[in-house]
Every structure is written in C-alpha cells, then in structure tokens.
C-alpha cells in the first residue's frame, strides 16, 4: 500500500494531519497499538520538522505485511550538519515553533528512539529526506 500527503511550509494548523491519517490506516490494518504509536510519534516529529524548518514537501508511507517505510521529503533549505542536528538539545527553531511546544532539539532524537532504521540525507540548498522504517511484526 502506498500513501502520499503534501506538507505545506508554515501550515501549523494542519501539522500532524498526515500522521493522523497514517495512524488511522494502521489501526484499520490491526497493527499492534504499541507499534502504531512508535510509527506515528516518529512521523509526527518529522512532519512538524518539515513544516517548521523546510519549504514544504511530501510524506509517503509504503506498507507491506512486515514493515512500514516512511519518507518525509522536503524542498530545502537542508541541514548543514546532520550530526549536530541529531544531538538532543540542538535546535534552530523559530519562536513560533517553540510556541507550538516544539523546538527543544528533541525531534530527531525522538525519531531515532522510535524507529528500527533511520536514514537522514540532506543537501544544503536542495532539501532533506528523512527515511524511517519500522517492523510491523
């Protein structure tokens, strides 16, 4: 099953709607609730990142019997130092993002804790792809 959602820059009101839709799909597929939670917490953090830090992008989910592969692909500006961004407490979030209850530098570390495989590829000026895989069984 392939699902795809558009993420719009700065659209904080709808931040989480892709994660919400994927959560509902996984529940309909009777995926274990603990696994559903790990998937949606990771995806939600990544979705908020794309809305808060990037010029919009796309969220995709590919679900098969054994795993879910999620991709959050944004249109830039890119992350200059991924190792720095992966460290808890590091953040470049705006005051607006902090007012939403995010921006404490916990997003990428939270994602890492919840997925089985994480790959972050970024090119400054081009964009970032966050690829997350979670085993469903």
């Amino acid at each position: 099953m392939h699902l795809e959602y558009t993420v719009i820059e700065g659209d904080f009101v709808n931040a989480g709607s892709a994660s919400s839709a994927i959560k509902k799909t996984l529940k309909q597929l009777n995926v274990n609730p603990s696994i559903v939670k790990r998937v949606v917490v990771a995806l939600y953090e990544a979705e908020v990142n794309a809305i808060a830090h990037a010029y919009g992008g796309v969220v995709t989910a590919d679900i098969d019997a054994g795993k879910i592969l999620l991709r959050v692909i944004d249109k830039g500006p890119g992350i200059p130092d991924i190792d720095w961004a992966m460290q808890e407490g590091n953040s470049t979030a705006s005051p607006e993002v902090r007012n939403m209850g995010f921006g404490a530098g916990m997003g990428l570390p939270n994602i890492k804790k919840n997925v089985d495989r994480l790959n972050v590829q970024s090119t400054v000026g081009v964009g970032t792809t966050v690829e997350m895989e979670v085993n469903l069984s």
Partner: protein
Amino acid sequence: MKLSEIAKVLNAKVVCGQDRLDEEQDKVFASDLMSDILTLGDNFPMIVTGLCTMQTIRTAEMGNLDIIVFVRKKKPTEEMIELAEDEGMVLMECDYSMFKACGLLWEAGLKPIY
C-alpha cells in the same frame, strides 16, 4: 481517582468527554513541551499543560493520550474541541497555575509517571 473528582479538585470545567467522567485515573504527566509528551510510554493517558494549541490535541492523538487538563486559564478553540471530540478525548479548563494544579493533584493522591 475518578475524572469527575479530578475536575472537582481543580475546580475545572469539562469542555468535552463528559460521558467519561466515571473513569478512574491514577497517574499524570505535566509539561508544556510537546516533544517531552511524545517520549512517554504506553498507557499514560492524562496530561496537564499550559500549551493550548491545535498541536496539543495532535500530540495527544499521536501519543495515545486522551485526557488533557489546560491550566493557566487557557481555553481550547472550537476547532480543537471538535478534533478532541472526534478522538473521544476529555478536555478540562482549569484557571490555576501549573504548579497549583499539580500540587492539588498530588495532594489528592495522583502519582507521577516517573
């Protein structure tokens, strides 16, 4: 402790989920930081927060939390209440500060998550 008793202790107004007030709850987590709330494990459904935005409801949805007490006189919008109702959540409005609300809940016997 029943949710109805929690509402009484906090002098809180229940804005949605009135049909769940007989449910028992013995643990609570308090934070304004949504990423903190997303680190919680399973089966801890109740939070106290002063962050009153659409993201509070979304965070609760993703984190399998469904009882939210808003402190510091924060009032959820109609849009937030609508989403919370769709998700079967209980929302309460409390005029007290976070410290006072947590102190009263502690005194009433509620336990921390950690």
